[in-house]
């Protein structure tokens, strides 16, 4: 029996790795997650027979365990089914936080047992339990803040006076109590203080981070949760947890690096500073030109009689749910022989790949959707670049003005197209609060209005031609 369960864990770990590998290619991705799902179910079922838990059917532990599984699964299932695709990033943050919280809670039970006089499994195990506890707790409370920010419950980025100093002090305090709890038999009160401090640390670290940086932070917390799971796996001597957790920890770290690189923001920068706090306003210079407005009918003519149109979607498209209308417009234009492509900035939207998911939802073929490196050489040959709800990712100051906070960030060269049409709700600045010089350029014209309505007007315009 014991051997059988170990075998199931072994297979689970292997299938997780294969599944992750398959998930990194569009062709096999779906198969990958289904395999991983089956492995997860098998591992969970096998755990009922694990030697560590000798349960009889009537025990309160088993009954509560089943209730907990049903409640947790039901809540997650319903929320994941119902949530709109545009809100997916914060849901990932929430589920990730739950995993981190679970890892921390595992450590909490172990530490409470120790404080009640249970036999210690050695210093190494205790240290790993405490490390997993800190990481899991930070990931839990941090993800909760990330969720609140993306969901719009918490609008402002908050900075307390001496925020950085307080975080450092808090971190030191967590280390001290972690040490007290990890060595010898921990006092119950210390365990409680330790967890409270770790949770507060997660909140404090995440509070000052702006919404634009959230994807990187969520990815980082995802990697951290993986690591916490791995550490608790060592504590419980469970190979499936160790391998799966570590694999997620390292792949998550790589993913975080890829995202941070795409934003030209070192991870340390994301965590320890925020946009606009480094005196960016002082460097603001005068902008030449003015914003020119265009009517939808004129814009429609421009595109319909062009050879090539490149669409640059951003978060505004997601908010306006304009992806289906865009696809409709694409079909109309293609019927007229216009070459239509989509240019996706790595950090367009609130997460890398966010735009791709939405466009795929609308049925856009993914060979029409191109990355920054692939599409940038094509802008000079495009008759129209249609920017819809994107702002900072097409701001030419990233190339030209060394004083700008986004200087050096790779951008989409929409300004190199013959004509640029920008669909925008109002005249305000982008997420980072930086003025966009593209909007004032000679070849740029503004089409004001809600993304979905504006595209509907464009469609109507094209149809009349």
């Amino acid at each position, binding site marked *: 029996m014991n051997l059988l369960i170990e075998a199931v864990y072994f297979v689970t770990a292997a299938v997780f*790795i294969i599944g*992750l590998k398959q*998930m*990194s*290619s*569009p062709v096999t991705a*779906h198969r990958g*997650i289904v395999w*991983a799902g089956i492995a*997860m179910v098998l*591992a*969970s079922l096998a*755990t009922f027979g*694990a030697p560590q*838990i000798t349960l009889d059917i009537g025990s309160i*532990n088993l009954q*509560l365990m089943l209730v*907990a*599984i049903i409640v*947790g*699964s039901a809540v997650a*299932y319903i929320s*994941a089914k119902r*949530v709109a*695709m545009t809100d997916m990033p914060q*849901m990932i943050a*929430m*589920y990730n936080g*739950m*995993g981190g919280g*679970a890892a921390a*809670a595992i450590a*909490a*039970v172990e530490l409470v047992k120790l404080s009640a006089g249970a036999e210690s499994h050695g210093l190494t195990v205790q240290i790993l339990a405490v490390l997993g506890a800190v990481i899991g707790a930070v990931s839990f409370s941090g993800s909760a803040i990330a969720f609140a920010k993306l969901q719009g419950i918490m609008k402002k980025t908050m900075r307390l006076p001496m925020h950085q100093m307080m975080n450092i002090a808090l971190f030191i305090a967590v280390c001290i109590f972690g040490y007290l709890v990890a060595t010898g038999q921990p006092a119950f009160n210390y365990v409680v203080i330790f967890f409270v401090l770790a949770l507060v640390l997660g909140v404090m670290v995440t509070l000052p981070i702006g919404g634009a940086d959230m994807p990187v932070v969520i990815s980082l917390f*995802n990697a951290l*949760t*993986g690591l916490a799971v*791995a550490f608790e796996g060592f504590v*419980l*001597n*469970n190979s499936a*947890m*160790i*391998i*799966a957790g*570590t*694999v*997620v920890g*390292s*792949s*998550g770290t790589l*993913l975080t690096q890829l995202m941070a690189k795409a934003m030209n923001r070192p991870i340390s920068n994301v965590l320890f500073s925020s946009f606009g706090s480094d005196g960016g306003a002082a460097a603001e210079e005068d902008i030449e030109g003015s914003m020119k407005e265009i009517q939808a009918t004129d814009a429609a003519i421009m595109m319909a009689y062009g050879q090539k149109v490149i669409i640059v979607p951003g978060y505004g498209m997601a908010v306006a749910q304009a992806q289906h209308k865009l696809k409709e417009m694409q079909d109309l234009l293609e019927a007229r022989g216009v070459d239509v492509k989509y240019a996706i900035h790595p950090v367009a939207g609130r*997460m890398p*790949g966010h735009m*791709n*998911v939405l466009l*795929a939802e609308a049925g*856009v073929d*993914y060979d029409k*959707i191109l990355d920054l490196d692939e599409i940038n050489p094509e802008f000079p040959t495009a008759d129209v670049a249609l920017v819809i709800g994107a702002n900072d990712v097409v701001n030419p100051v990233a190339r030209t003005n060394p004083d700008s906070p986004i200087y050096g960030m790779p951008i989409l060269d929409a300004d190199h197209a013959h004509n640029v049409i920008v669909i925008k709700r109002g005249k305000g600045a982008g997420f980072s609060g930086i003025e966009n010089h593209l909007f004032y350029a000679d070849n740029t014209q503004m089409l004001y209005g809600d993304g979905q309505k504006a595209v509907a007007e464009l469609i109507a315009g094209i149809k009349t031609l």
Partner: protein
Amino acid sequence: MIEGLPALYIFMLSAFTGYEVISRVPVILHTPLMSGSNFIHGIVLVGAMIVMGNADGTLELTIGFIAVAMAAGNAVGGYVATVRMLEMFHTAKPKNEGAQ
């Protein structure tokens, strides 16, 4: 039992595996992949169940209950979210070369 050096080896090899496995992922799959790896650390459910099975007294049972419920939420939510995202790629034609 996995202890001492063998444990360290497992840790190191798993870390390299995770790094290698996703090193050539196209940008379009970044969000689904993050969601997928989010699902995979839902394996914490196994640990939560073990801890819950061993819990004694109200406090341990309560924390254990929270652990199991959250871990189940992580696994189920992560799975459903990932599948929903990936299903959107279903109708699209496969593309041979991935970016990056």
